[in-house]
């Protein structure tokens, strides 16, 4: 799979990676988390078409915490469309280990560069500043 190119030196702006559900589907949980955090630590914004499972969200918080360091990386800002309107997963699905991730568009960015201005069930409005 081809990797995304990086901006040339001197180019100004904020890069946004829109990652399809198909691309994430082929990755392990840790590969997904690494992909997200490597981009965010470079100052990029990541938009996931399919979101993460609850277990992956839990691990994302845990790994983010281990990487925070003074004057370098202060963590992530993350927003996801609410999923309360979606049907609840049944007991059988949970027993079989299936976790609901569909239709959970998620925006993740560096905490010092992205600020959520507004969120409701069909709109996420964010302010992104340059480094």
């Amino acid at each position, binding site marked *: 799979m081809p990797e995304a190119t990086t901006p040339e030196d001197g180019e100004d702006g904020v890069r946004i990676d829109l990652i399809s559900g198909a691309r994430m589907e082929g990755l392990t949980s840790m590969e997904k988390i690494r992909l997200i955090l490597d981009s965010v630590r470079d100052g990029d914004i990541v938009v996931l078409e399919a979101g993460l499972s609850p*277990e992956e*969200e*839990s691990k994302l*918080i*845990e790994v983010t915490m281990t990487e*925070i360091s*003074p004057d370098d990386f202060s963590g992530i800002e993350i927003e996801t469309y609410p999923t309360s309107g979606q049907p609840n997963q049944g007991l059988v699905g949970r027993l*079989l280990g299936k976790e609901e991730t569909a239709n959970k568009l998620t925006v993740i960015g560096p*905490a010092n560069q992205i600020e959520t201005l507004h969120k409701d069930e069909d709109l996420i409005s964010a302010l992104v500043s340059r480094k």
Partner: protein
Amino acid sequence: MGLLTNLRDSITRVTDRLFADDEPKRIGIYGPPNAGKTTLANRIARDWTGDAVGPESHIPHETRRARRKENVEIERNGKTVTIDIVDTPGVTTKVDYKEFLDHDMEKEDAVKRSREATEGVAEAMHWLREDVDGVIYVLDSTTDPFTQVNTMLIGIIESQDLPVLIFANKVDLDEADVKRIDDAFPQHETVPLSALEGDNMDEVYEKIAEYFG
């Protein structure tokens, strides 16, 4: 992970819970920073054991490592439940030491505090997946509950099939709005209380006995 492995793990988890009734249940107190988790943990521990769990403060991340109070025996309506209370650091996705400088702290102390806080949150997240039998989720009823961290945490707890009680804390304050919390998480029961003033603690203990007994 294969389908059969998942099924076997799920059945093991369920049977472990069914046959572990003699052991105290480990109840994690989770929630965002400054929701009053330690104040509640101290209130419960003092009421039933006479000892506190840890220091309280208005500065975020006062609790930076999880603290455990073991064998807290709560009796309500003829039902007795023994729990280990695990007071956890406030869960967040970001910690910036500069925020602590506003609380008259030197940079060195602020950096140390933020480092301890991040370790504590990572530990709390790990425990949530591996080491708790139930969750008390504490929210500050004077603030908007519909944050991403709250939504994610409640989703994570639900995905673990853990019993969860939502406590709307700080109802002694004029700005408290319990209905807002009720509306944000309608799939769970919300219990209003003031851990600081001790308001509505009878219902709190009734619900703990009912949910975790």
